[in-house]
C-alpha cells in the first residue's frame, strides 16, 4: 500500500469482513476510535501508510447500556458522552472520573475508554479504573466473539492482546454490589493536560456494618502495564477501611510498584506517590460506599 486509505463500516459484520479482507490482501489496517493517541502517533512515530478503519459508525461501539447485569460500554464512546451519563457515574464514579481526566475538554470530545485501553500506555488513566471494576473486553474478529479480562488485555507498553483482524467492541462491567463504590486518582504536576505520573483505582464493597467484604486495587504508571494488586485488596478486606488499613494498602501498592525514572517522575517518587494515591482513593471509595452512592 503506497498511500493511506479510509473506511468507516457501519455494522459489526461489515467491519469484521473488511478487516478480514484487508488481512487477506496483506494490507496493514489501523482501527480509529477517538484518534487522540492514534493520530499523534501516526504523525510522529510510525508514518507508514495503512488503511484507517473508523469504527465510530458501528452502533455497538457507540452505545452505553446500563442494566441489572452491569454496564456495557461501547469502545468508541467519547469521554464527554460518558461523563454526561449521571446514571453511570452514580455506580462507577471512579471509572467516569478516570475517563474524564484524559486530556482537555477538546480531547474529551473524542477520546474513548476503549481507545485508551487499546493504546496500552502504562499511564492510561482508564486502565486501573477498569481493572478495579473487574471489566471484561468484548472482542470481535474473524473467529467470532471472545471475552478477556482487562488485566490480561494489556500485554506490554503499547501492546495489547488483539489478534490480527480483531477489534475491541465494548467493555463489560459486572453489576455493582450493594454498598460498593469505586474511586480513581492520579498524580500529575499540573491540574490538567498531563500524563499520569502514578495512579490508583480502588473498588470496595461493604457489609451493613461498614466492614469491607470485597476490594480490588489497581495501580498505573508504575510498571510496564497497569497492575492488579491483590495484597493491597487483602489489606482492605475485613477492615472498616480505617487509617491503618488504608495505610497498609498504600504500603502494598508501593511494594508492588516497579516504576522507572523518566521525564515525568523518578522511581522513588512514583513508588511513594502510588501509595498515597491508593490510600486516598480507598478513603474516597469507602466514603462513597457508606454514603450510599452505589
Amino acid at each position, binding site marked *: 500500500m503506497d498511500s493511506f486509505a479510509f473506511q468507516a463500516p457501519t455494522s459489526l459484520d461489515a467491519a469484521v469482513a473488511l478487516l478480514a479482507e484487508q488481512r487477506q490482501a496483506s494490507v496493514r489496517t489501523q482501527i480509529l476510535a477517538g484518534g487522540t493517541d492514534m493520530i499523534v502517533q501516526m504523525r*510522529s512515530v510510525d*508514518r507508514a501508510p495503512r488503511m484507517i478503519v473508523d469504527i465510530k459508525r458501528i452502533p455497538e461501539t457507540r452505545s452505553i447500556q446500563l442494566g441489572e447485569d452491569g454496564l456495557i460500554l461501547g469502545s468508541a464512546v467519547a469521554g464527554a458522552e460518558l461523563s454526561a451519563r449521571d446514571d453511570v457515574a452514580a455506580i462507577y464514579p471512579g471509572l467516569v472520573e478516570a475517563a474524564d481526566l484524559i486530556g482537555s475538554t477538546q480531547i474529551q470530545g473524542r477520546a474513548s475508554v476503549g481507545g485508551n485501553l487499546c493504546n496500552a500506555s502504562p499511564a492510561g488513566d482508564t486502565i486501573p479504573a477498569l481493572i478495579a471494576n473487574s471489566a471484561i473486553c468484548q472482542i470481535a474478529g474473524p473467529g467470532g466473539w471472545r471475552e478477556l479480562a482487562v488485566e490480561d488485555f494489556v500485554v506490554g507498553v503499547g501492546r495489547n492482546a488483539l489478534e490480527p483482524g480483531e477489534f475491541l467492541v465494548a467493555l463489560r462491567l459486572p453489576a455493582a454490589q450493594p454498598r460498593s463504590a469505586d474511586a480513581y486518582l492520579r*498524580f500529575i*504536576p*499540573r*491540574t*490538567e*493536560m*498531563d*500524563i499520569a*505520573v502514578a495512579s490508583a483505582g480502588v473498588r470496595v464493597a461493604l457489609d451493613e456494618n461498614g466492614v469491607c467484604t470485597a476490594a480490588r486495587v489497581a495501580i498505573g504508571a508504575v510498571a510496564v502495564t497497569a497492575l492488579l494488586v491483590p495484597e493491597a485488596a487483602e489489606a482492605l478486606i475485613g477492615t472498616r477501611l480505617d487509617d491503618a488499613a488504608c495505610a497498609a494498602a498504600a504500603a502494598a501498592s508501593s511494594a508492588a510498584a516497579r516504576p522507572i525514572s*523518566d*521525564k*515525568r*517522575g*523518578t522511581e*522513588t*517518587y512514583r513508588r*511513594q*506517590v502510588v501509595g*498515597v494515591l491508593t490510600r486516598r482513593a480507598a478513603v474516597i471509595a469507602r466514603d462513597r460506599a457508606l454514603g450510599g452512592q452505589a
Partner: protein
Amino acid sequence: MSEAISEAGAFRQIGTRPIRPDGLDKVTGRANFGADFSLPGMLHGRFLRSPHAHARIRSIDITAALAVPGVKAIVTGKDFPDVAPGDIEGGEGGGDYHDMAVNVMARDKVLYHGHAVAAVAATSTRAAEEAVRLIEVEYEPLPVLLDIDSAMAPDAPLLHDHLYTEGLPEKPARPSNVAQVMESTRGDIEAGFAEADVIIERTYLTPTVHQGYIEPHACLARWGQDEQSTVWCSTQGSFDVRSMTARVLDMSISRLKVIPTEIGGGFGGKTTVYLEPVAILLSRKSGRPVKLVMTREEVFRASGPASASKIKLKIGAKKDGRLTAMSAWLAYEAGAFKGSPMVPGVMCVFAPYDVPAFKAVGYDVLVNKPKVAAYRAPGAPQALFATESAMDELARVLNMDPIELRLKNAVRDGSQASYGPKFNAIGMEACLQAAREHPNYKRPLGPNQGRGVAVGFWFNVGMQSSAEIHINEDGTATVIEGNPDIGGSRASMALMAAEELGIPYQDVRVLVADTEAAGFTNVTGGSRVTFATGMAVIEAARDIISQLKARAAALWNVDVEMVDWVDGKVVARPGVNVEADPLTLADIAGQAAKTGGPLLGRASLNARGAGPSFSVNLCDVEVDPDTGKVDVISYTAIQDAGKAIHPSYVEGQMQGGAVQGIGWALNEEYIFSAEGIMENAGFLDYRIPVASDLPMIDTQIIEIANPGHPYGVRGVGETPIVAPLAAVANAVNAATGLQMTELPMSPPRILAALEAAKG
C-alpha cells in the same frame, strides 16, 4: 482588578480602556498570522535536523531526496555564503552574525540536537518530508557538553576551536567554552563581609526554559528573477529580519522587503532569524514561493530558549538588616554559540539594593544546546531568583518582615545603581509600600500554606523608532509605524495620537507597515514600543499640530505666532483680532487643499530616558506534603508603569509575565538525555501553566512618572517575569520550612527535599 495610583496630569483619553483597533480581526479569525499566507505555485519546505548534539558532518548526499516526485529544491550549508564575524546590532547583545548564519544552517559541524542540516522545498509537505528522510548524512559524533560545570572544566572538549575568552586582562593562550567574563565591583567587599553579623551563602540553579509562544515560527518567501525578495513572517522586528537575512545571504538590504504578519507571541524569542534566509534560498533555487513553518517540536529543539544558570550568591548584613556586602558568581548557558544574557545578569543582580560593597563576576558559557534567545528581561529572572531568595532567607534568619528588610536596603532616587548611574524617579519604595499595605499581604494563611515576597527589576531601553500620521479629509487619522503589535500596542499608539490631536480614539487607525512603507524602527522588545514608538507617535502628532497652527493662521490671515493649540483646537491668542471660532482638526483638514495640501506628520528618533521599572510580587502557595505538589492560591503583582496608557494592557503584561514566571518556578524545564536530546519537546511534557492551575492574578499599577517621556511612560513588558521565580520559591519555603535553591520546584524535587528534611 487593579487600582491605579496616579499623580499624572489631566489626560482626556490616556488611561482609558478602549477596544483595540485590531480587535475584531483577532476574535473572528480574520487576522493573518505567520502561517496564514499562501501564494500561487507555493512550495512547502521541511528541514533535516541533526540527530546528534555534537558531530562533524563528513558528507551529505541528496541524490535520492532530489528524485522524490514533487521535490523542487534542496539546500545545505554549501549553498550559503560565508559570513564574517560581527556583533549583531539591535538584539540583546552578545550575538554574532557569523554564528547566526551557521545557526541557520550547519556547515562543517552540528552543535546541538535539532541543528538544521538541510532543507527541502516540494509541492507538498508530505513530499518534502519524504525527501528529508532520504537525505543521507554521515556524521562523526563528538563529545557532548550539557551543563555549565562540564563546559567550564579545564580539560573540557571544545565546541569551537577558535573561541577565546573575552574580558580577561590578556587574550588567553588556549581556546575555551567560556566566551566572555565580566566583572563588576564597588567598595571593599572583604571589609563588608567582615563587618556582617549574618552571612547567607548559597548556590542557585535554573533550567533551560522556553518562551513558549503559541505560534510556531513561520515565513513565506518569494524570490524574483530581478533579485528582489519578499518575505512575510511572524517576527518581533521586521527590520531586524531584513538586516539579519541580508547579512546571512550577503545581499543588499534594498533587495529585501519584509512584511510583518500578525505575531502569535514572541517574548524575545522572535528577535532573530531561523527560517527566512533558508526560505529565500529555496525560493531562488526553485523559482517558486516557499513557505516554511516550524512544528512545535522544532520550536523546542531548534529555536532559541532561555539560558540555564548557576549562580553562587553571598550576602552579608548587620543585625538590623542593613546590607554590608554582596557577591555573586554567575554562569549563564549560551547554547551552541556565544551570547547568553550574562551581561544584563551581572548588571542587575544587585540593582534593587543600596549596598556599600559588592562584586559580581559573570561567565558566558557554551554548551551543546540550541543558541539561546532573549526571553523577557533576559538574564534578570535567573539573577534575581538568587538575590531575592537569599534576601528572604536573610529576613527569616533576622526574624524581620521581608518587606521591611527590603525597604531598609531599597534603592531610591539618588542611589547609585549597582550598574553605574544614579537612579531618578524610580518606584522601588512605592511598590514595597503598596505591597506592605495590600490586603493580600495580610490575608490569614491555612495549614501547609506559605507566602513569598520578591522584587523585580528591568532596565528598559529606548532605541530607534519612527512614526507617520496621515490626516484624512474629515479630520480622522492614520498612524503608520513598523512595530508588530504583540500585545495591544496599536491601541496605545491610537490613544496617544488621539490625545495629542484632540480627536476621538475611534477616529485613529493604526497600520503596522512593512519595511518599505514604515520608517525604520528597532525590534518590538526591550519594553520599548509604547515608550519609544509611542514617543515618535506623540512627536509626529505634534508635528501635525505645528502644521495645523500654520494652516489656521493662513486661513485667518494672521501670523502663526498669533495662534495657539488649546484643547484640541487652534485658537487665536488673547488680544488677536480674529472673528472666527476656534478650528478643529476636522475644520482644517477639510480645507487642507487651500492651505498647502495634505496634512502629514512624521517623527523619527533615537529615544533616551527609558526609566527602569521595579515591581514587587506577593505569592501564596499551598504544598501537598504527601506529593510535593504546589498550588498557587493567590498572586499579586505590583509594578511601576510610569504612566499606564491603556491600563488593561499594562495589567495584561503583569499577569502574563507573572504566570510565565510561575511556570518557570514550578514545572518548566528542558529535560535532556545524556546524549543531549531534549526528551520533552512538546506541550504535553514541557508543562506551561494551564488555566486551571492558577488563581486570578491581582494587579496594582503604580505610576511614578518617568521624566524621560512626555506622558511619563516607562516600559512594562519585561519586569513582570523577574520577581515570580523567587516569590514562588519563598512561598514554598515559608510553607514547608525548606530552602529550595533549584528550579523547577517540581513535585518530585519538593517531595525529595521534604523527605531529606525529615532525616
